[in-house]
């Protein structure tokens, strides 16, 4: 068929497909840029507004460039104005969140890793049911457990405390972390565990010496996931804590909504960015492992 085509018609076809390709390419860029700006736009407004003075905000438009790099609202958001009562600022709550997120991420990841290890390498009767019920935990709406959890925390004497929030987040992280680790360990050859048992290693030794050292990708995934979930959580924070013990998201809400006088948009924007920065940092530092961990298959020995 093809050799019957004349060379001139070949050239025509070539030319035609060249134009079509060029058009499609430009169209692709156009759509991408459009969508990208749609996503970047709110961030732009936030950053720009946080750098403006209230004067500028009142006069200017939403999109206009600030007159200078004015970090005053950032300082106010972080450390307050220093006039005592009624002055809410983020610093203490930021540390609250850190104190909550670090142990909660650590424990939920460790427990999830252990559960995943048991469910794949130390199979027992009914283990698939245990896993099924754990999975079920991923789908329970958190609102449904607020009241029983409040009672539990009260009974344990840790309501309205960071410790209480650590417990809540650890418990509700376990279904997700177990799922991650189980799916990862399923692809690790069980022969590794057998070999280690013959070599005389026990349950914990096999976990800490053999499996955990090869779990870096999935640990990164779990840590990012848990960090984001716990840091950004508002529901548990606002339900189980108030005042001094509140995490940053709750404090941010109080700051932005409870100001009685004029709305200080620049301080609000700066606060919102501060509250969001830690998750961004975690993503930037570990992002490439995130993708790698999600897609990593079998661990070859």
């Amino acid at each position, binding site marked *: 068929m093809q050799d019957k085509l004349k060379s001139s018609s070949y050239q025509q076809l070539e030319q035609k497909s060249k134009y079509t390709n060029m058009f499609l390419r430009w169209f692709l860029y156009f759509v991408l840029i459009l969508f990208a700006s749609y996503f970047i736009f709110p961030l732009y407004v936030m950053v720009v507004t946080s750098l403006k003075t209230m004067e500028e905000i009142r006069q200017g438009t939403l999109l206009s460039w600030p007159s200078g790099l004015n970090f005053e609202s950032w300082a106010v958001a972080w450390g307050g104005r220093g006039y005592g009562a009624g002055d809410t600022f983020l610093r203490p709550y930021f540390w609250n969140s850190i104190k909550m997120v670090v142990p909660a991420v650590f424990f939920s990841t460790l427990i999830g890793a252990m559960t995943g290890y048991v469910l794949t390498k130390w199979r027992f009767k009914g283990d698939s049911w245990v896993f099924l019920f754990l999975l079920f935990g991923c789908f329970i709406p958190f609102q449904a457990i607020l009241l029983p959890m409040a009672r539990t925390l009260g009974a344990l004497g840790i309501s309205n405390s960071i410790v209480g929030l650590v417990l809540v987040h650890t418990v509700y992280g376990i279904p997700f972390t177990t799922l991650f680790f189980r799916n990862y360990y399923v692809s690790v*050859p069980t*022969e*590794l565990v*057998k*070999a*280690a*048992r*013959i*070599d*005389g*290693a026990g349950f914990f*030794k096999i976990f800490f*010496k*053999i499996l955990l*050292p*090869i779990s870096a990708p999935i640990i990164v995934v779990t840590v990012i996931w848990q960090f984001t979930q716990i840091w950004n959580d508002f529901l548990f924070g606002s339900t189980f804590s108030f005042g001094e013990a509140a995490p940053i998201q709750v404090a941010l809400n109080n700051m932005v909504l409870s100001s009685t006088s004029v709305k200080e948009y620049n301080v609000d924007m700066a606060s919102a960015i501060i509250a969001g920065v830690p998750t961004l940092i975690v993503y930037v530092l570990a992002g490439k492992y995130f993708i790698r961990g999600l897609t990593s298959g079998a*661990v*070859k*020995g």
Partner: protein
Amino acid sequence: MKTLKIEDLSKNFGSTEVLRKINLEIDEGNFLVLLGPSGCGKSTLLNIIAGLETINEGNVFIDDYNVSKVEPKDRNIAMVFQSYALYPSMNVRENMIFGLKQAKTSKEKIEQQLEKVSKFLQVDQLLERKPSQLSGGQRQRVAIGRALVREPRIFLFDEPLSNLDAKLRVEMRREIKKLHQQLKTTVVYVTHDQTEAMSLGTRIAIMNHGVIQQNDTPENIYNKPSNTFVADFIGSPSMNLIKGSLKESSGEISFTANGSNFEIPVKGYEFKDKSNLNNKEVFFGIRPEHIYFKKSNESDFEVTLRADLSEYIGHEQIMTFDYANQEILAKFPSTIKIELAKETKLYFDLTQTSLFDAQTEERI
């Protein structure tokens, strides 16, 4: 004293019976191959010997000591796995001494063992490498090394060569054979590859559906299969099993295939039991390589068969003939030219035949 003895061992996973009343004994220094199709229970049996699986019934003895409830590490065994199972986060040195460290062996002893074994297996240059930086053959060697440093009473191999490419597999097979010749340790080796089994084993136990079909020397497995399963499983192509019946007249026993008009005398055959042979339904077994194109022994029996199919495989050819509407295969050097769809004279080597009861499928 038997190095390994297995007594009436049964194992089931839920309602699935995996092993049924297994009895097995190995003398010191023997190389026992467990051979069978996938799902026959051979790997489960090996795991039970290692202590990695529990037993439902029966006992395992190592050096006359009942180890049925003993932890794997205390059984004085070492195992080499199909995937090698080298610890990915440790380098070769750490991999090899992990077991000795767990057993709290003294530092000097560990170093001594490591040096001896790594030199012996020629991995002493690789000690600082991670498993991911090794080739397949090197990994295999390290895995064997990890087993060797523990100086076990019994080596267990679980299909150690099936992850290697064909060429390397043949090389490693020879190395394992050499290793066994030098060390003379007792070995239990699981494989589904009959060439591996034949070339390595001093004894072969053929398994099917959780039952040992025959436990014998490679020669006997090949020449005197104890039932049709073994006859069919060993050899490539497998043994021809021709359906027919025996006839006894005035002390002479002969075989007639169903629908055929000539008798094959089987007077030279060593029957287990000579009674009640007349009119017995049997399978007459002859291997493709024992059907000749030229008469070579006085006792060879001449038949004339039609050639239906020819498969050329380089150094030899496999021909399919029609024997009273039953297909039989023969193996010839590829230099022989045989015309298809023509009657051809062939010679059965009657010293190499097997007879099986058609009902029980057991050798008679």
